[in-house]
C-alpha cells in the first residue's frame, strides 16, 4: 500500500464564495456522502424494513392490514421441511461447486502458468464463460442436457453408455447444475490463481532450489502460503455467489425433480410470489442475510490476518 495515500492532503483556503469555501472544507465528507446515503437507503433500510415485515402475517390483498405475529415466522423455520431441504441443497451446491472450481482452477493454473502467461488472447478466450449472462448459460446447458435430442446423450451413446434425463433426473439434477456452474466459474478461479502465481517473488524459490527442496515441498512451503490472500478472496467471492444461485436452477430444473434442486433463493421466490406469503419470505431472507454476514465477516477477518 502507498503510505502517502494516507497522508492528509489539504489545500489552503482561497478566496471565493462562502459556499465554495464551505464545500472545499468538507470535501472528504461531501464526496463520500452520496454513496453512503444511497447504500443506506438500498441495503440498510430494506433490512430493517424486512425485519418489520417478518414479524407480521401479510395478506396478498393490500387492503388487509398487516397482522402482528411476533416471532411466529421465525419459529416456522424450525419446523418447515421445505426450508430444511432448500438449506441442504444450497449447502451441497455451494460446497461441491466451489470446491470443484477451486481445485480445477488451481490445478490448471499450476500446470499452465508458464505456457499461458504471455498468451493474453488465449487467456481471454478461456475467460469468456464467466462473463456471459447466466440465463444464456442456463439455456445453453438446457439444450445440451435435453434428453431426446441433446448433445450429451449423443456423446453417452457414442461411448456405449445409457442415456440419462440429466436435469430431469432426481439423482442427476444437482450434478447437472453443478457441472454448468463449474463450466461458467472455473475460469474465475483459474484467472485469480494465475494472477496470484504471477505475483510470487522469485528469491525464495531460488533459495529452496539451492537447498535441494523438492517441488512438492516448494509448493506447500512457499506457493500455498504466498497464494493464501488470493485464495481467500477467490473463495469468499465464489461462496457468496454460490449462496445466491438462482438463474441456473430457475431455467434448468425449476427446483425439481422432487425438490432435489430447490435452493434457498428459489424457495424464497416461491414463498413470496407463488404462495404470496411475504412475511414468511422475509423471515427466510433474514436468515440468509444472517448467514451471509457471518460467513463474509469470518472470511474478511481471515483475509486481513493473512495479509
Amino acid at each position, binding site marked *: 500500500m*502507498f503510505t*502517502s*495515500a494516507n497522508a*492528509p*492532503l*489539504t*489545500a489552503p483556503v482561497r478566496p471565493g464564495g462562502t459556499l465554495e469555501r464551505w*464545500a*472545499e472544507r468538507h*470535501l*472528504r465528507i461531501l*464526496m*463520500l456522502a*452520496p*454513496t*453512503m446515503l*444511497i*447504500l443506506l437507503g*438500498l441495503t440498510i433500510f*430494506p*433490512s430493517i424494513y424486512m425485519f418489520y*415485515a417478518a414479524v407480521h402475517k401479510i395478506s396478498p390483498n393490500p387492503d388487509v392490514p398487516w397482522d402482528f405475529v411476533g416471532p411466529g415466522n421465525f419459529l416456522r423455520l424450525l419446523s418447515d421441511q421445505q426450508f430444511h431441504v432448500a438449506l441442504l441443497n444450497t449447502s451441497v451446491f455451494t460446497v461441491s461447486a466451489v470446491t470443484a472450481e477451486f481445485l480445477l482452477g488451481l490445478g490448471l493454473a499450476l*500446470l499452465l502458468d*508458464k*505456457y*499461458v502467461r504471455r498468451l*493474453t488472447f*488465449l*487467456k481471454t*478466450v478461456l*475467460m*469468456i*464463460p464467466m*462473463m*456471459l*449472462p447466466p*440465463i*444464456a448459460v442456463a*439455456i*445453453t446447458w438446457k*439444450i445440451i442436457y435435453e434428453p431426446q435430442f441433446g*448433445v450429451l446423450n*449423443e456423446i453417452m451413446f457414442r461411448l456405449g453408455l445409457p442415456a440419462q434425463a440429466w436435469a430431469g433426473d432426481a439423482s442427476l439434477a444437482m450434478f447437472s447444475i453443478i457441472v454448468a456452474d463449474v*463450466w461458467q466459474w472455473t475460469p474465475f478461479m483459474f*484467472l*485469480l490463481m494465475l*494472477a496470484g502465481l504471477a505475483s510470487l517473488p522469485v528469491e525464495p524459490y531460488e533459495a529452496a532450489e539451492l537447498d535441494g527442496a523438492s517441488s512438492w515441498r516448494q509448493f506447500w512451503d512457499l506457493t500455498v502460503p504466498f497464494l493464501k490472500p488470493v485464495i481467500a478472496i477467490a473463495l469468499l467471492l465464489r461462496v*457468496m455467489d454460490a*449462496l*445466491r444461485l*438462482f438463474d441456473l436452477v*430457475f431455467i434448468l430444473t425449476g427446483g425439481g425433480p422432487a425438490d432435489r434442486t430447490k435452493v434457498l433463493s428459489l424457495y*424464497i*421466490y416461491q414463498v413470496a410470489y407463488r404462495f404470496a406469503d411475504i412475511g414468511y*419470505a422475509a423471515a427466510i431472507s433474514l436468515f*440468509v*442475510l444472517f448467514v*451471509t454476514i457471518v460467513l*463474509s465477516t469470518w472470511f*474478511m477477518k481471515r483475509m486481513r490476518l493473512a495479509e
Partner: protein
Amino acid sequence: MMTAMTIRARSRTREVFIRLSAYLTIFVALVFTLFPIYWIAANSFKFDIDIFAVPPEWLPWHPTLKHYDEAFIQRPFLRYALNSFLVAMGTTAVSLVFGTMAGYALARFSYPWQWRKQISFWILSTRMMPPIVSIIPLYLFFNYFDMLNTKSALIVAYTAFNLPFATWMMKSYFQDLPVELEEAAIVDGDTRWGAFLHVALPLARPGLAATAIFCLIISWNEFLLSLIITLTEQAQTLPIGIAGRVTQYKTYWGEISAAGFMACVPIVIFAFIVQKHLVRGLSLGAVKG
C-alpha cells in the same frame, strides 16, 4: 560425464512430457469452454427440424435466419435488448459518478478513528448481500411509489450492487496513482476539488473505462431483480424475455438460442476490451492483475 548426460536427457524427456500434457490440457480446456457457446450459436441458425435431429447436426448445414426473425422482428426481443441497454447505461452512469467520488475519498482522505477502514468494509459488505434478500422490501417500496414495471425501478435496484463495486474499483485505481501530482497541482494554486477533477480523474481514465464496462456487464446479465420488478415489455430486460420462452408446455429452442447468442455477443466484445482489467474487476479491486 556419461551419467550427467543421461540425467540431462532424462530431465529433457520429462520437460517434453510436461510441455505436451500442458498443450493437451489447453486444447481440452478450449474445447470444453467453446463448445457450448458454439452449440448455442449453431442451433440459432438451424431450422427446427435440424435442432431436433438425432444424431445432432454438428454444423448448421442448412443455415437460416428464421429464429432471428421470430425473436427480433415478430416478438419484442429488440425491445427487451433496448430496455437492457438503457437500464445498464443508467445504472452505470449513477454508479460511476458517485462511486468515483467515494472511491477517491476513501483512497485519499483521512477520517477520524478507523472510519476509513470501517466504511470501506461496510461498502464491500453491501456488495455481498444476496439480491433475493433486498428484493422484498424493494418490491413493496416500488409498489408503494407506483414504480413497478419501470426502467427507473431497475436502475435504482441495480445501483444497490453496482455502486459498491464501482467504489471499490475506483478506490483501488486511485490508490495506484502517485499522490505527488495532486500535491503539485495544489501548490500551483488549484483547489482540493480541482486537483481531483483536473489531475486524478484524467489519470484514472483507463480505470474508469474498465469500471464502466464491468458495470454494464453486471446489469446486462442481471435476472432475478428484473424478474420480480418487471411485468411487460415496457421494462422487461433481455434475460427475462429469454426465460419467458421456456414455458411449462413448450420451449422455443430456436428463438431462445438466437436471443441467447445475441445477448452474449456484446459481452464477448467487452471481455476483450477489458482483458487487462479482468482480475481486478472480478476481485472487486482486491487483486491487481
